[in-house]
């Protein structure tokens, strides 16, 4: 069936599909906004990832 053809189920479940789409888009927007906020407030952009990262290593006391 070509994707352009509208099946009866598409009309019937339009409300549900639009609802899920809006929910997922809101989730993406929230995660994005949260990331920007965290970075703007000085939170670290790197974390432990099973490899040595000198940029996040605490400097040794002299």
């Amino acid at each position, binding site marked *: *069936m070509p994707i352009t053809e509208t*099946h*009866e*189920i598409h009309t*019937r*479940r339009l*409300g*549900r599909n*639009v*609802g*899920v789409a809006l929910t997922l888009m809101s989730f993406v927007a*929230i995660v994005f*906004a*949260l990331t*920007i*906020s*965290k970075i703007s*407030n000085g939170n670290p952009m790197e974390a432990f990832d099973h490899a040595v990262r000198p940029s996040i290593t605490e400097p040794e006391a002299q």
Partner: protein
Amino acid sequence: MSDFTANSDATPQEARFGDYFALLKPRVMSLVVFTAFVGLMVAPAGVPPVEAFTAILFIALGGGASGALNMWYDSDIDRVMKRTAGRPIPSGRVSGGEALSLGLWLSGISVVMLGLAANWFAAGFLAFTIFFYAVIYTMWLKRWTPQNIVIGGAAGAFPPMIGWAVATGGISIESVLMFALVFMWTPPHFWALALFMKSDYDEAKVPMLTVTHGRPHTRKMIFAYTILLAPVAIATGLTAIGGPVYMAAAVVLNVIFVKGGFDIWRRSEEQAVADDYKTEKKVFRFSLLYLFLHFGALLVQAGLGAYGLGGW
């Protein structure tokens, strides 16, 4: 083929998006949002607005997830009772499996997102709250003891503590008192409703105090809890989040609530039937205002603090 399969499922009562939303018990979520918001705002540590918004959103979603798990487990009871027979599962619009899956997924998402937005202590607290409501209350206490409302009320009382934990990363006397305020408020609030809402809990085999111990005993317990609640509300006013505005509101509200509890206790069932439970309905409506104004006063007190006018 897949179209045919999907089409064969078609029923006149197919679930809409709103039915899935209804599984999250939006009315309960509004209480969770408000008390968690106040808990976060009155805390001594500030939270950036976007992080605060995200934290409240996922606390609410966690509350909603526990609501979906509750509706999944209680669908047999809901089917029997007239008040709940129209809910998405008993009415056949949503299957039990769908509700369970939605509840579990949203629980996981809300806990992880709260951990990322705020801290892992608050996230763990939210996970415990979901567990408490879905397992301790729904699966265990609700069908076992007439004290179900009392202990189960703790689940509804945790959100201000979670809000506080979002800001501070811990627990303190202030957050424990906000918990105690909602915890002690729940029994008189719910039992006042149980007196005039002739629900069919008996048929559903749910032990409610009005049925197991009788209505005069329930009246006595409402009065007892309004007396026990008052010192909790006043004590909250003596902590760092209290102040003159909160204290004035708490004194007035508690005098009215204790008087309401006393009035309910003094009435006989005959008197109540004669005026169609006028006093019970009045006290129930006031109980909603009681909680809203206590937390509202805490918020006002915190707002005034920013201008050097709050606190003791």
